[in-house]
């Protein structure tokens, strides 16, 4: 079956539910059965958890399963695997790679992380210095250091880009691999942030041996492969609706309503402005969702993250100020290592500090503005001095 109608999907979903009653089936068994029935991500090919159906039809399946109280694969915990690794494996992986990795990735049995950023290569990702050199027959040896790696401490696999030819300009000579995080030579160290917690990691790679069968795409084509990963990172998940006053603005509005003693005219003006900004951003996301549903994706996706970061920073700063004396306190500086990050969790001081990362992680706001300016508005790129210079000759 290459295409499926919404009715076929609904009847397949009901068949799955009747053969594997969620009330009595082990959650993992249910998720495996759902994958095998092609109802995991219906736009994936048959045999890889999908049915080759339009992506928009997933919402109907999800609604049916949620109504039946079926187990969820916790997409937040395994977001990097679902959002970044899977589309890349689908596009560039061999049949054997797809068969090995996609099912446990989707069910959440195997968590993935992303070894892209380095201390010297953040927004300038193509400047990366981690080296992969051919050693024994069919084996690459990898040395380097990665940083800002979410979930590295729980991940089974990592997507990794490394330099395989330093004599070429920096966007060339990069190759894309899948790294086994349990291999000797992979060392994960927590990286404590300004919030006190260690949500991310540094990852040190020392003589890590990666078989050539774990390469995704051709040798030297890693930058192109990575674009697939990064474009998918920024694609809106779609299908998710935020209610009015969802998220941070709701927390702040509730505080305003329940604490009249905190109100001042100046804060009132600012609150209303933030409230309007939040509603406009919500409507922008809703419009994007409606465009995706009718198969006409708009460029708004490039802007929603930029807008979200700005709003989150303004709102959380406002909240600390609104709380007056309470804003001087912090809930807990103890270093903890969360598996799940909830931007809105904990208290106002935490939210304020954590929101500072919103304009850095997943593409800085500056890079997003460049993308909008160049790809949406068609403005010319800044002149580049590093484009045609061999990587080894660049100032390191």
């Amino acid at each position, binding site marked *: 079956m290459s295409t499926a109608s919404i009715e076929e999907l609904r009847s397949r979903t009901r068949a799955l539910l009747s053969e594997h009653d969620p009330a009595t089936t082990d959650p993992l068994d249910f998720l495996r059965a759902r994958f095998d029935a092609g109802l995991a991500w219906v736009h994936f090919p048959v045999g890889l958890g999908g049915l080759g159906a339009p992506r928009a039809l997933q919402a109907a399946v999800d609604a049916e399963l949620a109504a039946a109280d079926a187990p969820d694969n916790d997409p937040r915990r395994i977001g990097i695997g679902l959002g970044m690794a899977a589309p890349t494996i689908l596009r560039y992986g061999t049949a054997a790679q797809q068969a090995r990795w996609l099912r446990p990735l989707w069910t959440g049995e195997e968590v993935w992380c992303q070894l892209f950023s380095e201390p010297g290569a953040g927004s300038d990702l193509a400047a990366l210095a981690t080296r992969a050199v051919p050693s024994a027959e069919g084996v690459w040896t990898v040395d380097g250091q990665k940083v800002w790696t979410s979930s590295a401490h729980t991940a089974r696999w990592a997507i990794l880009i490394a330099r395989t030819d330093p004599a070429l300009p920096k966007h060339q000579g990069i190759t894309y691999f899948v790294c086994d995080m349990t291999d000797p030579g992979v060392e994960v160290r927590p990286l404590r942030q300004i919030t006190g917690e260690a949500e991310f990691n540094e990852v040190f790679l020392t003589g890590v041996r990666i078989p050539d069968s774990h390469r995704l795409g051709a040798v030297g084509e890693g930058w192109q492969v990575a674009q697939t990963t990064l474009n998918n990172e920024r694609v809106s998940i779609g299908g998710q609706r935020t209610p009015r006053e969802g998220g941070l603005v709701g927390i702040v509005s509730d505080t*305003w309503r329940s604490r009249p003693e905190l109100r001042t005219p100046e804060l009132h003006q600012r609150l*209303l402005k933030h409230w*309007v900004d939040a509603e406009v951003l919500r409507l922008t996301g809703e*419009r994007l969702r409606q465009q995706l549903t009718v198969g006409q994706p708009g460029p708004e996706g490039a802007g929603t993250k930029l807008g979200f970061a700005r709003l989150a920073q303004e709102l959380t700063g406002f909240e600390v100020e609104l709380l007056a004396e309470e804003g001087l306190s912090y809930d807990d500086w103890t270093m903890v290592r969360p598996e799940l990050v909830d931007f809105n969790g904990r208290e106002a001081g935490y939210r304020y500090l954590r929101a500072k990362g919103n304009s850095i992680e997943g593409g800085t706001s500056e890079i997003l503005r*460049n993308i909008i300016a160049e790809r949406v508005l068609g*403005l010319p790129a800044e002149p580049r001095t590093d484009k045609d210079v061999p990587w080894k000759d660049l100032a390191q």
Partner: protein
Amino acid sequence: MTADPNLLYSEIEEELRASVRDLLADHSPVSAVLARIEGSDGYDPALWRKLAADLGAAGLQVPESHGGAGASLRETAVVLEELGRSVAPVPFLGSAVLATTALLLAGDDAVRSLADGSRTGTLAVPFSTAPFSTAPGRPFTSSVTLGPGGTLSGRVTSVADARSADLLVVPAADGSLHLVETGYELTARTSLDLTRPLADLTFDRTPARPLTADPAVLAHTLLTGAGLLASEQLGIAEWCLTSTVGYLRERRQFNRPLGSFQALKHRLADLWLDVVGARAAARSAADALATASADAPVAVAVAASHCGTAAVRAAEECIQLHGGIGMTWEHPAHLYLKRAKADHLALGTPAHHRAVLAELVDLPA
């Protein structure tokens, strides 16, 4: 809970947009608007005839049974986007939006002559009048009083689209509405917005015909006007962004296109995000008004607050980023700045709409 708003454009709306845009490109290029503002009243009657009568834009929101096109405020909003994009000097807002809405709500047959474009009208309130609540304690204030035989006396200042109007919908102090066609004095004002002239109106025992005693009609008319003005503001902002991007791609300084400088690119990216938000907010308001959603007051307050600010910012950035040429009379950027700033005050400032919002969503001062 109200239904989710439809924030997209239908095929019919896109076709309408294309027709209006073609018509404006052919008959009202910005060069022609620049030339026309030197004239007496700024309006372009020939353009209005083509738009209102030939294209049927004046009667879009009017049911076919009343001589209109039987479309909705969603389509009316699309026309306003294009009129904003072209700063077209036509009385569409006063006639096809404000007067037409009031006459439709009042159930008066005079709407027919507005719908077919044979006559134009406007609502006789200061253009800065904000939508008001009909709840007790928040009345509409007007100096126009009702006299013997239903005549009107009083003065209304800064009325938009009055100079070309054949009929006026005049609110009296109690919020009741009256139709006036003759017997009043009109004094032209010099307007900040060169493409939307203002006038002061004086009534002195002027004969009038009562339309409705229900103040809710005026309240809803002003709400509709403020909600649809957001679409005009979107059009203004879009033109300012597009023309600035076009200029920065061509203009070279320091041996590079100006648009390649990151400092300028980032400003335009932020402006683009404002415009994208304006489109979502303006569509939300237009859809809520068109479907008579219970959410319309909130949707209008959000759209009016965001779009009013976005249009002014876009026009101000447009002037600045065009450099010296942006400051000249011969470049059209000033027409957009003047329209944007006047619209910022029109039918309630963003600050006013936020104050209204505070009540609607229970965020009291």
